[in-house]
């Protein structure tokens, strides 16, 4: 079975053609980046040959309470998606627009959606609730926005246990453009750093992460700034970009030897340490750490910083707290999720 994977982003569309056998990825035929789906169609048409597509698997950022697992985009699910528009206008509109284009481009091929929020549907109320007045008109709750990576990371840990005892209390660290940490107990998330949007939490390549709520209020009230400009500042001009005054990837922040980068790295690692400490309190201990995400292979500096400090807190001997890297890419995760949805199989339960 061949899946065409579509991963929409802030700047364009990542795509890949993935071959799967028995629901698992066997090879990636090609991958690339396009400005939009019509551009992708043009690119596909220009290829002399490419495998026949059996399913279009899309990554969707937000699925609300309705989507607890990957889903086939049928009429019922389309209506459910429409119902979520008010909750997350930008994310849902992006998903719907891309789905519409995909249906138009591939009218006879089933389309599936893999939601980043599904993993966090059952996050406890004590974690999801903001202390706002009941009549504030805001029905926001906390979500995580890297649920696909976290689930893949847990699958990886389960696979690595290979019949042995699987770690129950897991610190899952997704190293991506907007990094995210989740505390997970037996595949149930108890805590996550992101908030009602991915802006809250750890600082990212362009987003500010946790800040005092008085700061956006001060900026939005400033007549020289205003709410819209504030939003742009916090989501596009902050994070590593804001601190450095130039774009920098998470990988660069974690590995660069430049002095200016040290300050940014220290800030990020400190924030990660705070989140890891919260996770220890939530989980009442810790059995394993797993890294995932686009920059998972750059996890070593994070592990070197976090692991000794967590071991010290937990009274563990140095080097005894296990940590692993999940090598799965978002492309393969979304491809597998699409096939799971299509064939009606749930993700393998550890």
């Amino acid at each position: 079975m061949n899946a065409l994977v579509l991963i929409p982003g802030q700047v364009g569309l990542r795509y890949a053609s993935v071959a799967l056998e028995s629901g698992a990825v066997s090879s990636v035929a090609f991958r690339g980046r396009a400005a939009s789906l019509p551009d992708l169609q043009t690119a596909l048409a220009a290829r002399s040959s490419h495998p026949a597509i059996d399913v279009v698997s899309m990554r969707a950022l937000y699925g609300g309470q309705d989507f607890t697992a990957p889903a086939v985009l049928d009429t019922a699910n389309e209506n459910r998606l429409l119902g979520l528009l008010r909750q997350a206008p930008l994310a849902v509109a992006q998903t719907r627009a891309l789905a519409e284009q995909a249906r138009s481009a591939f009218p006879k091929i089933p389309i599936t959606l893999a939601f980043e929020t599904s993993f966090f549907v059952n996050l406890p109320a004590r974690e999801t609730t903001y202390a706002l007045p009941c009549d504030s008109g805001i029905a926001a709750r906390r979500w995580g926005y890297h649920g696909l990576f976290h689930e893949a990371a847990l699958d990886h840990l389960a696979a690595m246990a290979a019949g042995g005892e699987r770690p129950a209390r897991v610190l899952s660290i997704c190293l991506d453009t907007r990094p995210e940490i989740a505390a997970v107990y037996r595949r149930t998330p108890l805590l996550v750093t992101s908030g009602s949007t991915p802006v809250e939490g750890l600082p990212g390549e362009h987003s500010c992460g946790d800040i005092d709520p008085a700061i956006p209020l001060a900026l939005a009230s400033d007549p020289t700034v205003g709410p819209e400009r504030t939003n742009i500042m916090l989501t596009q001009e902050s994070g590593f970009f804001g601190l450095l005054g130039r774009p920098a990837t998470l990988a660069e922040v974690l590995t660069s030897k430049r002095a200016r980068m040290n300050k940014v790295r220290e800030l990020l690692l400190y924030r990660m340490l705070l989140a890891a400490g919260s996770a220890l309190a939530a989980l009442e201990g810790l059995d394993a750490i797993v890294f995932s995400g686009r920059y998972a292979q750059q996890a070593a500096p994070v592990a070197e910083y976090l692991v000794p400090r967590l071991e010290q807190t937990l009274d563990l001997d140095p080097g005894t707290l296990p940590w692993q890297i999940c090598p799965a890419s978002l492309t393969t995760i979304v491809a597998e999720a699409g096939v799971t949805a299509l064939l009606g199989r749930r993700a393998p339960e550890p």
Partner: protein
Amino acid sequence: MRVVVFNCGSSSLKYRLIDMPGETELAAGEAERVGPKTALPGCIHHTALGGQEDHTLAMPDHGTAFLAVMKLLERDARLVPEAIGHRMVHGGPLFKDHVVVDETVFQRLHEVQDLAPIHNPPALRLLGACRQLYPNLPETVVFDTAFHSTIGAAAREYALPYRLARAHGFRKYGFHGTSHQYVAEEAAKFLGVPLGELRAVSCHLGSGGASLCAISNGRSLDNSMGYSPLQGLVMSTRSGDLDPSIALSLVARAAGDGRAIESMLNRKSGLLGLTGISADIRDLITADGASDNALARAAQVYLWRIRKYLGSYLVVTRRPHCIIFTDTIGEKIPAVRWAVTAGLAALGVAIDVRKNAEVKSLPADLATPASRVRILAIATNEEIAIARASYNLLRRAGRPS
């Protein structure tokens, strides 16, 4: 040296006269209904040398209230103040330590007024009145933010555009520093640990504001409050941590009125916002969760946020000597202490259920004998802390009597 400590609220003036360095309280009281005329007249509740009296009078401003308090004290030669210590909430970037007031300091204090618009302006007006009416009395200002001036860059900075943060002074300042410092000093004495070596997590849980502080070598490493007191824990009427996007959505719904939203997040959110009926955790923690899910959920949200910060700071302080609970809720509500520390044996924290439930006097150690981290309940005393700081400042300046 008799130091009168003033803690200035928007419509009140609390005071204590403390004999230093013995830290003996000689007099105390509170002037209520200071400011514009209200339905009831202003009143000073005054306690001195074992006697208690109430004085009804109009106090249209803090200067009038101050003068009335001074007259009450000056009736007895044993109560005549020799120095004044003022509490000021926010010292901003200009004041990293407490100061003896002179003309230069007085002028510079005006520059940090707006950082705490509810608390700083009345304190500054009081300071002005004191300087005018008692120009020869030495005065100090003790800042809540000063203890946190040791917070390092990684904890202090926000990941905002560098120039924007600099231009607006967006950084973590931290609050409740006077209380955190005081209980850290008391904890060091209680445990027999030199203050300069003390590692602790201090939980200042007031009936209004609340914050946690990570302390290492007797100094503040981090505080859950930030640029303003709004960040951090869920409080009685403050929201605490919030997604920046929510703050902006609220501003959009209020047609750009950021001040209205700031007021809502400071005065109508937190426990009050969640329950709609009570801003006090004491009303919720005893509520029957089965009969009222909203109250039980509010209590859980409040406790969970404390627990998360506690976990963070237990790691940051690297095997702390103790967790300290202080202020109204921290000192008096065993259920809160239990809920936020239970099940943390893996982190070296084990609370003794019986000791926690039966605290008879403070300070008290509530941990089991096996607990690596001691769990202390210590009564805070910000006035003593201010008197200490004032006395030490004036002694260094060569001005004790």
